[in-house]
């Protein structure tokens, strides 16, 4: 089982994601300007400020050569996880529905938050139990999830809302407390909270490790 973590200019949490992934499988950094995904079983698009978040968070990174390969990989059913800026990139790339707007209070917020797992049949939540609460830090400037009402209805109907902030933990003003979503095929998942920063009891919690464990599970079971 090998994770590939994409490094864009301006990525911040790519090494954190790499170290987190290595707790559950092999992992390597992938360069934004390359296109080669051979040997990669799951892609992680990390947090940070790719291309300085200039223009709009994630708006430039989606045009990176590597993102073309990621889109292909995703269409073929390959598991893709976007964390924070990675979530923004996936939305910009049209691989996930909706958009992430500036936080309601227009400030960067860094805080440990509780999430509930709404769906356990995605590529990154199989190791969770339905309704489980995860404690994971979030830190972002543009994390207010938005989708128009009709799209929201559809997302709810098809079970694409994967994570919700627990009561009192939605600090960015996300619609319906949505913290993370998946695509229709359930292999592409994005969330704002930083799962890779919750893999070690020494630095806070281990709950985020469940996302990496979920992706590692099938390959692990086959081995």
């Amino acid at each position: 089982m090998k994770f590939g973590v994409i490094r864009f200019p301006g990525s911040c949490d790519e090494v954190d994601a790499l170290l987190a992934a290595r707790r559950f499988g092999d992992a390597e950094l992938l360069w934004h300007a390359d296109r080669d995904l051979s040997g990669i079983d799951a892609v992680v698009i990390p947090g940070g400020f790719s291309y300085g978040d200039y223009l709009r968070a994630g708006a430039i990174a989606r045009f990176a050569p590597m993102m073309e390969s990621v889109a292909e990989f995703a269409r073929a059913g390959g598991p893709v996880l976007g964390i924070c800026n990675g979530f923004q990139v996936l939305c910009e790339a049209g691989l996930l529905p909706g958009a992430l707007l500036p936080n309601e209070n227009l400030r960067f917020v860094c805080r440990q938050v509780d999430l509930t797992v709404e769906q356990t049949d995605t590529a990154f939540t199989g190791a969770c139990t339905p309704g489980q609460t995860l404690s994971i830090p979030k830190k972002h400037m543009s994390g207010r999830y938005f989708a128009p009402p009709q799209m929201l209805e559809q997302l709810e109907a098809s079970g694409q809302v994967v994570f919700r902030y627990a009561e009192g933990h939605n600090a960015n003003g996300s619609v319906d407390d949505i913290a993370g979503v998946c695509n229709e095929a359930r292999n592409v998942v994005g969330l704002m909270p930083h799962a890779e920063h919750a893999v070690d009891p020494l630095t806070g919690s281990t709950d985020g490790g469940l996302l990496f464990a979920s992706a590692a599970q099938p390959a692990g079971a086959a081995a």
Partner: protein
Amino acid sequence: MSAEAAQARHRELGLTDYEYELICERIGREPNGLELAVFSLMWSEHCAYKHSKKLLGSLPTEGRYLVMGPGENAGAVDVGDGLVCAFKVESHNHPSAVEPFQGAATGVGGILRDVFAVGARPIAILDSLRFGELDTERTRYLLDRVVAGIGHYGNSIGVATVGGEIYFEAPYEQNCLVNAMCLGLAPRERLIRSAAAGVGNVVVLFGARTGRDGIGGASVLASAELDEDDAAKRPTVQIGDPFEESRLLECSLELLDKELLASLQDLGAAGLTSSSAEMASKGEVGIDLDVSLVPLREPDMEPFEIMISESQERMLCVVEPDKLDAALAVCARWEVRANAIGTVTDTGMLRVFDGEEMVGDMLVTALVDDCPLYDLEPAEPTSPVYPDPEPQIGPDASDEDTFLALLGSPNIASKRWAFEQYDFVVGSRTVKRPEQAGAAVLSLENDGGSGAIAVAIDGNGRRVACDPRRGAIEGVLECAQNLACVGAEPLGLTNCLNFGNPEKPHIAWQLSQAVAGMAEACRALDVPVVGGNVSLYNEGGGGPIYPTPVVGMVGKLPDPSCVAGSGFTDEGDQIALVGPFVPALAGSEAEKLRGRLGSELPEADLEAHAAAHAAMREAVRSGALHSAHDISDGGLACALAECCITGGIGARIELPGTLLELAGLDAALFGEGPGGFVVSGPGAAIAALAAQGDRVRVLPLGTVGGKTMEIGSGVATLSVPVDRMRAVWTGGLPSRLS
């Protein structure tokens, strides 16, 4: 230029007539316009430390963990396993007073570059901020924009902001202080110095293009008092681009990892001028630069503008000719602009060319070494320098009213509003986050090291204003105390000396007293100063700031999993007061609320403090304690309250007779002073601390439990529910900002 015009010009540029004559004498002629601009920056207080250099020589700079001392972009200490920690604190006060967002942001950008210029990867930022009282709109604006600016730069570049401090005092109203500290890690062999080496080697400028921003920042902004025309100085404030810096950082470290550089230096104050002159000076060589090869933001910039521009996110390096192509390829991969703009020579001159034409020719030693150093003329002021603060509580306020006013005062209240705007987890090292423990604790496990480092930043200007020498001693003690709370042994210290105009005798007195105190405390604790920064002329229309020496300290601890937080944890745990704490009201927050500043702080027994720190370190490292917190602003009552609030549990306290006899009830509750730790744990853990010998005083205080903090002294004195304290403490700052 006529001699008369040149004279008028040199004064505009901040040089005295005497200094101008000296320049003419050293170069044997009148300087041309470019040379004058270059000299004015190199001989500014900011670059030449002409009023502080003599004094700084008294600070100890040797220690057993020291790897690189003052003089380089940042100092460094050994943290074991072949790793070194480079760190430095620097001010960006005047730019932040003029344009707070960019001023603070570029302050962070500048200190990050100082750290990666020595080859270390920045891993943490801390900030020490000072503003006027929050009841003015300007202060609220400055606070808001400074915090946003720090977050903007640090968050975007992915370096965790793990700690800091903020104080609000009227003397900072016109002249806020923004001090940023950065620490970084490097394998020992990657450390690089800035001395230019190898005649014939190529000088490469890489990073952002050069523009007109920040022209003259070092002399105009940093080395003169602020006045009402601040707005007109906006063009001298630089604009930061953290995305550019993030690529510059990765590119610099890759260049070093591939061993492609002979030396490296960042462009800070005075831009290309000071970076090239200092590299040449340290390497005892000359440098030829061709400004026509410098990539520009605006096509029509004059050579002198290119030389003194303070555009951000630029570095200068020296490369051997046969490694140039490889170096440029690394820059290209990171999309970092890089241009060979000069060569290292054996002339001992800094020569500036504009294409074929030589437009400046200056002796490097004259630029770097020959600025006159001035003796301070200190005189103890005969009347108070600062007015008493406005009283916030009446003379007959009850103990409970005083206590709650303290707990909610902006200086003591939780700083969550600010630190939640900073990313404190990126890097996966943060074991103790802001307000969880006395110091930030950063694991070295993922960096190939063992254990953890701890870091804290401290400084209390009001107490230094009361008593410059003892106040400065206390600053060092408090920082070491914060490290002791997490079991860390101090390895080195960086300082930022923020003072008023040193040409005034009473400011000179504050400065020399404070440096003497700092030196004394560093010697007693055996902590060397690895580098730092001096920021003088911090005066606005209302007079000088409080003298504010800020101290940042880095320590090492073997096992971060043993570190307890500051909050009480277990019902029934015993609570004790450890250390030679002698509470006094002079200079305390309580006295401030009562409208008094006070004078003369008690003398600290430095040996007893060092012994208490050592005992605390051992106790924390044993893992037996459940909590450890130091007593600081607001005294014992506020320290206990913070332990209760953070832990979410109450306590029953009986003030020890020893303390009451020593200080009286009022000072026992609210008096301040260094050397006090509040610890909790099982009876055996407290007994083990008490058994450490006669040098460390351990006084039993009470037990953890319930939902209320009760402090008695025979009869009940204070009894406040934890929920109420939390509301007051967490609401103190936000309630004043909305």
